[in-house]
């Protein structure tokens, strides 16, 4: 249970900045292309 037992709660400043940029870009892209992305994901998942 590595995931459950890991109690560390710290990030480097660089990681915090990268997470902010990635989440904002991903959310922006999802707002613009949301329905197309959902359809593509469902299509790929359906083929598996």
């Amino acid at each position: 249970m590595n995931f459950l037992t890991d109690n560390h709660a710290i990030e480097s400043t660089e990681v915090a900045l990268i997470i902010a940029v990635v989440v904002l870009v991903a959310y922006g892209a999802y707002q613009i292309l949301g329905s197309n992305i959902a359809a593509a994901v469902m299509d790929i998942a359906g083929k598996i």
Partner: protein
Amino acid sequence: MIPLWMDILILIWLGACLIHDVKSRTVPMLLTVIPLIGVLIWRGVTGDWLLVLLVVVLILASDLPKNWRVGLAALGGLILLSFVDRRLIPIVLAILGIWATWEIGAMGGADAKILIALSLIYLDIRLLIPISIMGGVHGLIAFWKKEKKIPYTLAITAGTAMFLLTR
């Protein structure tokens, strides 16, 4: 819709996590595992058991050899995406992203568990926006002050409070 008393309880919980994080750079399992398991049980009862299954798969995958765990997580995620309700796809992707961030060592396990628990409670991807912005702002301030590490629970607590006040 989550009742107000539960929002307040969640903010108190996050405050307790923040205090531990600032003091010791860790959050005890009592404050991360117990809430996560509680949320998993609750979501199982409310019928979102596919999300519960995803988190259980990720927890179990974390014990596998490195090459296997990423593959299993990706495969499990894709299979679940084909069954899960369309409105939950962003949450599934967010949970996978949070776990992957922990997996590559970029996020502490306590932060990852708290973020996954919050995602499961609110089932709203917009929760992660203020948290990420607060983390980015805190990261910038810390970078300017030449600090290398930040307690991310501050961003989680402030971001969640902002989300609750503005929704």
